[in-house]
């Protein structure tokens, strides 16, 4: 990730974080996999991305967290069912981050043990398997 420029955790309060967590849990509920991906890891990952790659999304997300506390389900339903919904971009970002938390390389602090990969039937990065670092399919 590029150089750290600001501290997102300091900009979001506990209520914001709780709403973020509730949104992520709802947008893509993770199946219970022992020692597998967790929403807590995904929340921490999202905060890191907001400091770097997805910094431009911080403003729209913060506004959303402000507005939707307690009404996450209503918002998700509206954003998902209306392609032209004004917050559609944030919806898609949340869904993308939730997938990252489940399926990105564990070196990003998500997808513990690569168990999200196994859940979908993937043996892990094939080039690493090729280099003898793991099992093939």
């Amino acid at each position: 990730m590029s150089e750290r420029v600001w501290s997102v955790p300091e900009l979001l309060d506990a209520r914001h974080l709780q709403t973020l967590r509730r949104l992520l849990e709802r947008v893509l509920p993770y199946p219970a996999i022992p020692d597998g991906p967790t929403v807590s890891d995904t929340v921490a990952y999202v905060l890191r991305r907001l400091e770097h790659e997805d910094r431009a999304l911080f403003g729209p997300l913060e506004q959303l967290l402000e507005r939707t506390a307690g009404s996450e389900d209503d918002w998700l339903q509206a954003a998902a069912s209306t392609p032209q919904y004004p917050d559609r971009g944030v919806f898609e970002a949340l869904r993308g981050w939730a997938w990252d938390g489940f399926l990105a390389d564990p070196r990003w602090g998500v997808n513990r043990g690569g168990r999200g990969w196994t859940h979908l039937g993937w043996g892990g990065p094939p080039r690493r398997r090729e280099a003898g670092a793991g099992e093939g399919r």
Partner: protein
Amino acid sequence: MIVDDPVDVVVVGLGAAGGTLAAALAARGLQVLGLEAGPQLDPTTDYRDDELEFAVDRRLCWQEPEVLEYEGSELVAPWLARNRGVGGPHVWSGFAYRFHPSDFRVATEVGVPADSSVADWPIDYDVLEPWYEAAEELVGVGGTAGNHPYEAPRRGPYPGPPVPRVPGALRLEPAARALGWHPYQPPAAVLGAARDGRRACSKCGLCTNYACHRGAKASSDVFALPAGYATGRLRTRARVLVTEVVCDPADGRPVAVRYLGPDGVAGEQPARAIVLANNATYVAKLLLQSRSARHPRGIGNASDQVGRHLTFHTGGVAWGVYDEQLFIDSGPAQQVAVDDLNEDRPWRAGAGFRRGGVLHGGMPVSFAGGPLTFARSLGGVAPLPEGVPEYGPGLMDFATYAYTRHQAVYVLGEDLPQAQNRVVLDPVRTDSAGLPALRMVYRRHPEDVLQVDHLLDAATRLVEQSGAHTVASAAAPVPGGMFAGHAHGTTRMGRDAATSVADDTGLVHGTENLFVAGAGLFVTGAGLNPMLTITALALRAVDRIAAAAGGD
């Protein structure tokens, strides 16, 4: 400003065309300098297999803001999938086609549709055929000659064997035959067997968006530049962004290029011949940026042709989910193609559009990659099948089931050139170098709209016929070729300076030493991928460029 020692030839951009030309010109005895805006790739960080880095964040692609004026709406994003880095293309997929003979004479074959700028190329297939042969040899194309009736004439077999097949392909082929078509395995610039120190494909499935760690997928750092460096006459510089062609104020002759170096310091590189090979749209941008008293509208733009006749290819996808596991993530994309709806075949059969396209099948709906790329594409590039929710447990369950059981068929169609579809400099927005951003003005031709519907319907039928129990399809929301790095026609070749920018070797009209290379030269875009034609045209131009630079 630093002024460097003059060289015989400066090549701007070291991708498919630039890498090929730089090496070939050095082999001709010329002192060549290649300037590349992207990095020198580092195998320890750039050849990894991390989906987040390479497919989601597209680390090896340009991320410049680009303005797309599409059907009258203005959209800003890094629209064009574009390779960056010395010795590209690295992130491409490896389809390596020769165009059909008819692709060079569309006007003669089907006439000029109203509101289009369709024209014949100034060269025909026979002229380019030996250069296709040379390009296939250089790049290391694998395939099976004679495997379908619409193949462009060739004098011999492919230099290498085809890439390994994946199970999905074996489902699509009989299905295509049942629909009356002639499926075939498309030629690939991915090695099916080791060659020239490059290893064969290991079916890692990480082609598109990734650099190939085995050198199996062709990029000019493996197929061209090493021979150039071996001459001792080729030097390349990374992270050097060329911003302008500099002309002699007295006679307007191009004499140098101006650049921003890695440290942001401006410099000037004088050269006897200048080759702009920095990708079709950005070649046009560079010409337009090169304004002077002698060339007030930009060099090469006296007749206002630079940037015009922009085409991208139409696109769409149909995909299906099957009962059995296909593990479609385990191979290169060159699995099954159908050419029965390409060229003017649908038109001759009564369709309302003159030029068709190809169907490519047997790849993931995310085109390449593993489960993250797949899952992230759901509801985006991959339209969700009816009944699959946009979020929630239903989406997770669907992804879990479908990942190993799906495959896709992609549409790639020839869009008709139109003079008003063009690249211009954005009057307001700037890019990361503070220069005007690229602005692309594009409207679909009415025949393109009919064509993409027709091809998408065919792709959907193919997926259904192959036994998928769940099918979804959608046309690309913007010209599909943008996502595949296909842009053509912005520096059209032709004999008449009033209607084209360069001659058939890329020599810019009105100059004696400024050349453009790449798909900008294409008069029409064909319904096939461009890279092999770009490379063949580059090889054909070597003699002419060498002569302009004072070589033999």
